């Protein structure tokens, strides 16, 4: 079976930036989100990603950068090569690939 390698930026706002590479099985037609979900189930459940609808591209929650381009992880196609996945650079980082994208009036400040 072919493989894709996701090189993922991890950590929180105060941490030194680090990346982790994960090899995932690749099947034509899969999305980057499929790969990230595979990593959480089979390798590391602590990888933080944000998504809700999984495949329909209606929740618009899974925005990340893939190879420097802002995309929805659910519509970006997984490819049988190395792909770089990073959090959005223009939003406050929460953890790993999760950024603060909630509208300001819909957040709780604790």
């Amino acid at each position, binding site marked *: 079976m072919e493989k894709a390698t996701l090189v993922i930026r991890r950590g929180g706002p105060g941490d030194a930036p680090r990346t982790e590479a994960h090899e995932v099985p690749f099947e034509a*037609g899969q999305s980057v989100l499929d790969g990230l979900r595979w990593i959480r189930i089979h390798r590391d459940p602590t990888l933080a990603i944000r998504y*809700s*609808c999984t495949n329909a591209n209606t*929740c618009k929650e899974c925005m990340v950068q893939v190879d420097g381009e802002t995309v929805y992880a659910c519509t970006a196609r997984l490819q049988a090569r190395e792909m770089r996945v990073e959090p959005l650079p223009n939003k406050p980082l*929460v953890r790993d690939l999760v950024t*603060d994208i909630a509208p300001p009036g819909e*957040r709780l400040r604790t």
Partner: protein
Amino acid sequence: MSHLGSDVLVIGAGGAGMYAALEAARRGCSVLLAERSLIGRGGATVMAQMTVAAALEDQGRDHWRHHYADTLAAGRGLCQPALARLLCEDGPRRIREMDGWGVGWAREGGRLKRALAPGHDRARCVYVDYLNTGPAVSKTLRAQLNRVPEIRRVGELRVTDLVVREGECVGAVALHVPTGRAVSLAAGATIIATGGLTRLYRRNSASLNMGGDGYALALAAGAELIDMEFVQFFPIGHLAPRLIGMDPIMWDPFRYKLGGRLLNGAGEEFVHKYGATDAGAYVATRDLATYAIEKEVAAGLGSPHGGAYLSFEHCSEEALRAAGGPVIDRLAANGIDLRRARVEVAPMAHYHMGGVRVDAAMATRVPGLYAAGEAVGGANGANRLSGNAITEALAFGARSGHCAADHAQGIARRADAALFAAGRERLSAGGRQPRFNAAARIQALQNLMQDYVGPFRTQAGLVRALEALGAMRAELDAGRPSAGAPFDTALADWMDLEAMSRVGQCVAQAALARTESRGAHQREDYPATSEGWRCSQALALDGGELRIERRAVAA
């Protein structure tokens, strides 16, 4: 610990929750709308593809009583009449209100376009083109919310416990997801609007937060669940080839508009062999079509990925374009030309007829605790009619908001910290190094539910599922991470697993007890429908054990 207070707490910001918040605010209440995802983004409403059933009485062409009759017939004798009537009678008012708010229902001349959906006696379903009903409904309700200062909206706030004092629900404890901190939520009345449980199944059209957490909250608070054995499988969910950016329910609008042909692996029509009609028209109800496809697969006549073929090869390019609009281009980007190739479809868990047991005021048996939308059980009996889900979200949302507001106005809110201590302690329990991966366990649970508690059931399979679910629950504590980390997805998985395993037990126990086949509940060992089983089953916790009791269905 942070603390928030409101007259009415609404848990879940899908269609039902947003409508409940609007209605409670209209009655003069302060409202906290708490959502574990982002407001108006998670849940099922936003994913609705097309039909919204409502008997709009313009020009005397329809009456809610006709819609009611169809709903009862589809429910195979188990609809709670008061709930079904509320859905059908109040639905048109909500559709008109949404129209006034600019949702954009498709129009023909001055009139709202109506589609004929399976199980309806006439064209009754309004929609927003193309495959856009859910996003439009969500967006419209969000726009209304933004105009009401009495409604505080907080996303990324996951309710983990309802707080019950002297038998009354007085609020909740929640996890603030971005920080991992506990938040107490005091409320005069609380509405569960968390949707259904379809994520319990391997093949589903669910979003991440449809793992039945609202059912688990209701059970733990002392409320009853009803009709839990009735899980609706949408017969023609997309199976293959793999598509991105498309909801698996996407073929529904195509079938409404174009008919389409359902074929087995040998390329033959087959639905008629199981007592239903298909043959180019989309009229077989969901339970019958699911039955036909699953039986064909079991007989070795499935498509390569284990479903059936759906073909639009006989349609012209113009007809396809008129029906699908921009969706045709999205299909092309996925390498699919419907004139040249069939797609594979299969039954997928899509909706749950069961849920929290409420009266016609949407009140549970726990004072101060209400439910709305798909979280409610009973309105749709053993099988839901196409188009009733969004209508139910809006009508039940409005009713629950109204009744919860009236309840809350007579209540002095309790905010003493001691009330919330137990919920807070539960959040800080657990270890830093969980001994299993809850994300992997969830996948195992989904396989188990699909294989043994899916569209077809046997005593042996259900017993096996209950044993496995019991074993999963016995091991839960070993895998629990303690709260405190920002956006802790491992903790979220663990909480989902806790709720999903409990709710899975409810479905399997109710399915094991019901020794007949009816609607969405099909027992291979009891294939006939039995008049003696024309009743519902209610589940409740009694000293930590699930108890099941029969409940009569009112005539």
